[in-house]
Each structure stands twice: as structure tokens, then as C-alpha cells.
């Protein structure tokens, strides 16, 4: 099929344009082919694969220690949580558990990741919808969170901190002090986020009632995370299938019933406060002890199939390992949240104006490498 689409125009007055792969609002290399009638969207077709690296095929030749680090490059804004999912899946196969200290460290890191990811999303959403200032506000706090990550893990984006049995190194001595400072800063500043964007009349007009998806459709399309929760679908893996001791932490699953871009926006904003609350409950209660359980140098999983899911900043990530007893996985499947969320884009955008598509993509919070893998 040609990219220009001269062979696929079926009606008079129909117009086909290509959005991306280099369009700034696609946040990566996503190519959308859009059928228009005037400015109204009739059809949207995503063309994927611009950043397909075949991580699943690569993993078949990597050891159970190495393949984890390839997943940092999938959803790079939830790198910690991707690594955690793989580490948990290997642990499930080995029938071991991370040490109590490592479990708490993992929750703390996962929630810090969620905060930094939502902050980047919030800044970019503002940018996409014509507000430049939110980007600087969001990056002020995101920078502080990333500095904590850098101190403990040695990296700011692809941390590679989770290993089977625990975490790679112990926390930096400054960790608790700095996390408390940053949590205080975020709590003090979060009202600014709402003041500058949430109540803004232009922002509200561009998001309210745009990109609606019903609860039933959200489940059918396999939407997860804030995208589904904004339609009233309860799907938080931390509540449904608790891992790492999330069942011991007090937090609320944020639900909204709007189903539109504004509801998705509000769900993420309220989720940030929940993450802050989880971190505050745990930061003074990190158990002493080993940060890593003892595992063999060469990990071999028993024959069988193992499935582990976690809640990333964008939804449910599933890791499905098929083992034939060798030192590397026989087959790995990543059920990535963005892949399923993207498949609903045509349903959301049909009948909307082309400008609304930007709002829809912004509030879906797509990360393209996670879709292509």
C-alpha cells in the first residue's frame, strides 16, 4: 500500500493525510494515516514498526540476567517497573522471593518512576495543547526525582537496577533524606499544576467530551491503566493481583467515569498524590537486611510457562516466559500497555476534529518503543 494513499480514497471529497512519523505530538516515531472529510476524522490507521528492535527475539538468546535490561528500552519512562516485572517473573519461575528490604526498595523506586513519568506526561500534554509553561514546572520536579535515581542507580533513564532476587546495589546513604525533601517539594507545588492547566478554559474546551470511550469498549480493546480507569474500569494490578507487598500499603485506586480526555487527565493527576502517599508510608520503614537474595550465577528456569503482570505508569505490563529448562528463555512475550491502548485510538478519534486527535494522543500517554518493542 502506498504511503500517500491515492489508491485508498473511496469517496469524493475524502482526503488522506499522514501524521508522523516525525510529528512532535506523536512523542516518538508513530505514523498515523488519517482519512478526513473536511476537518472531521473518518478513519485513523496507525502504521507501526519504525522503532521495532525485536526485543522478544533478542531475549531468546540472552540469559535470564541479561534479558531484563533490554526491557528498560521498551517503555523508557517506566524503566524500573519493566525491569521489576521481568525480575518478578524469573523469581516466580525459581520459586524465590526478593528480600523484604529489596521489596520495599522496589516499591519506592516504582512509585518514584510513576511520579516522574506522570510529570513528563503532564508537561508534554500542556505543550501539545499549546501551553508552554507547564513543561518547565513539571521538569523542575522531575529533575529532582531523576537526581535521586542517579544517585542510587547510576543512571537517569535506563536504570537497570532490578535483578532476580532483589536490587543490584544498596540504597545511597542520602536516599531517605532526599526523597523526603522531594516529596515535600512535590506536595507544595502540586497545586500550581492545577492552577496553571486544570482550570484553564482553553484546556478544558479542548479536552472535555473529546475522545470518549465507554467502559465496555475499554475492556474490549484491552485498555489498562489510567486510560481504562478514566472510563470507570477497575484495573489496577496493584489492587487486583498485588505483588511486592502492595497489599500492605494504604492507597486508593483512582477511578473516574468521564471516559474523555479530561477524565484521563484527572486520573493521572490524582494518581500522583497516591504515589506520594505510598512513598511517605514506606520511606521511614525500609527494613534492614540484605538487598538481594542469593541466586545461582547461571539461572535456569524449570520447564513451564510463567506469567507476571505489574502496573506501569501506563497500565498493565505482562511478561510471559516460556521455558524449556535452558539458560535462556524459549519464548518471551511482552503484553505492553501502550500496544492495546493505541488500538483504541480509531474508536476514540472517529468523528472528532483533527485538532482533537492531538488531545487524544496526549492523554493516552503513548510511548512508542513500548508499542513496537
Amino acid at each position, binding site marked *: 500500500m502506498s504511503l500517500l494513499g491515492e489508491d485508498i480514497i473511496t469517496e469524493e471529497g475524502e482526503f488522506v493525510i499522514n501524521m508522523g512519523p516525525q510529528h512532535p505530538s506523536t512523542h516518538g516515531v508513530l505514523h498515523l494515516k488519517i482519512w478526513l472529510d473536511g476537518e472531521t476524522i473518518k478513519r485513523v490507521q496507525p502504521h507501526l514498526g519504525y522503532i521495532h528492535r525485536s526485543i522478544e527475539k533478542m531475549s531468546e538468546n*540472552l540469559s535470564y540476567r541479561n534479558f531484563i535490561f533490554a526491557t528498560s528500552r521498551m517503555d523508557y519512562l517506566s524503566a524500573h517497573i519493566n525491569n521489576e516485572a521481568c525480575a518478578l517473573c524469573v523469581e516466580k519461575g525459581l520459586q524465590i522471593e526478593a528480600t523484604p528490604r529489596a521489596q520495599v526498595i522496589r516499591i519506592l523506586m516504582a512509585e518514584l518512576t510513576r511520579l516522574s513519568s506522570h510529570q513528563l506526561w503532564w508537561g508534554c500534554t500542556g505543550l501539545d495543547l499549546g501551553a508552554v509553561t507547564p513543561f518547565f514546572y513539571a521538569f523542575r520536579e522531575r529533575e529532582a526525582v531523576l537526581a535521586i535515581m542517579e544517585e542510587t542507580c547510576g543512571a537517569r533513564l535506563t536504570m537497570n537496577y532490578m535483578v532476580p532476587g532483589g536490587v543490584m546495589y544498596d540504597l545511597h546513604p542520602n536516599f531517605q533524606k532526599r526523597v523526603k525533601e522531594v516529596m515535600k517539594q512535590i506536595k507544595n507545588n502540586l497545586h500550581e499544576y492545577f492552577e496553571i492547566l486544570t482550570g484553564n478554559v482553553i484546556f478544558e474546551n479542548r479536552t472535555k467530551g473529546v475522545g470518549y470511550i465507554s467502559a465496555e469498549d475499554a475492556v474490549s480493546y484491552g485498555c489498562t491503566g489510567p486510560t481504562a480507569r478514566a472510563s470507570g474500569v477497575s484495573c489496577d494490578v496493584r489492587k487486583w493481583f498485588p505483588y511486592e507487598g502492595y497489599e500492605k500499603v494504604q492507597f486508593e485506586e483512582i477511578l473516574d467515569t468521564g471516559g474523555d480526555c479530561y477524565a484521563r487527565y484527572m486520573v493521572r493527576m490524582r494518581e500522583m498524590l497516591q504515589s506520594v502517599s505510598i512513598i511517605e508510608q514506606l520511606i521511614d520503614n525500609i527494613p534492614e537486611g540484605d538487598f538481594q537474595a542469593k541466586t545461582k550465577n547461571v539461572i535456569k528456569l524449570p520447564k513451564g510457562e510463567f506469567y507476571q503482570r505489574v502496573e506501569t505508569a501506563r497500565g498493565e505490563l505482562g511478561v510471559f516466559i516460556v521455558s524449556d529448562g535452558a539458560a535462556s528463555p524459549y519464548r518471551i512475550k511482552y503484553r505492553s500497555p501502550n500496544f492495546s491502548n493505541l488500538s483504541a485510538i480509531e474508536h476514540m478519534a472517529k468523528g472528532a476534529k483533527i485538532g482533537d486527535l492531538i488531545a487524544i494522543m496526549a492523554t493516552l500517554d503513548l510511548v512508542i518503543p513500548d508499542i513496537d518493542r
Partner: protein
Amino acid sequence: MTNEEIKLFIAALVPTAAFDESGEFLNIVIAPEELLPLMKDLRNNRELSFDYLFCLTCIDWKDHLMMVYHLLSKKHKHVIVIKAKITDVNDPKIETVSGIWKTANFHEREVYDLFGVQFLNHPDLRRLFLMDDWEGWPLRKNYVDENMIEI
């Protein structure tokens, strides 16, 4: 429903189904021809109502391909895994389930792209990640590419 009740329900519908409970979830292996009617029942039966297909993939076991469907019921919170064994690896065919769960549309295109499984009656079966003129099915175990290096 408990796993035992689900087993009884499925055994009544598909007498040839094989059950495996050694893993985390209840696994049910069926023949590809029986897939579509069984899936419709699993989705529409009130007692089961598997409304969420959370993972759809394929495994290449060299002498056969195994389609894997992970299903969850939001209402009853039970999980099962349906597997369909495709024995003809040179011309694998199976009915699409994209009419039952919309998410299957993209997932089946991915499986077609990387394993070459033909989904009958799929609304839009094209390659998803690779170029339209790409040769071969990369996630098959017998796939060779001149750029692949053994580590």
C-alpha cells in the same frame, strides 16, 4: 466459578479438550476448529463472562505452533488460558477472535507478522511492524537472516 466448575463446563462443550493445571493458571488445549464456538461461549456465558483478553500470542514448538489466549473475567475475577494447537506449520490457519474481543485485531496482526499464522475472516490482516515486502516470519525458530549473529 472454581477451576473444577470451569473444567466441567468446557468438557461438556469440547469433549476432546485436554486440561493442564501444573502452572499458575488452568490451561486448556483444544483443536483450532473448536476455537471460535468455545470462545463465543466463554465470552457470552453469564457464569463465565471472560470479557478481557489480556494476552494473545503464539509459541513455535518446531513441529507445531501453539496459539495462546489468556482470558480474565472482570466480574468473577477468574483467569484461564486457552491454547490451540496448529499442526500444519507450513500453512497455519485459525479463526480470528477479533469479532469477540476488539483487542485481538492488533494482537493477531502482530502474530501474523512475526509467526505467519493466517487468521481467517480477520478484517484487516496485514503486517504490523515489518515492511509489506519482508520475507519470512522472524519469531519462527527456523528463521534465518544474514544479519543475525550468534552470541
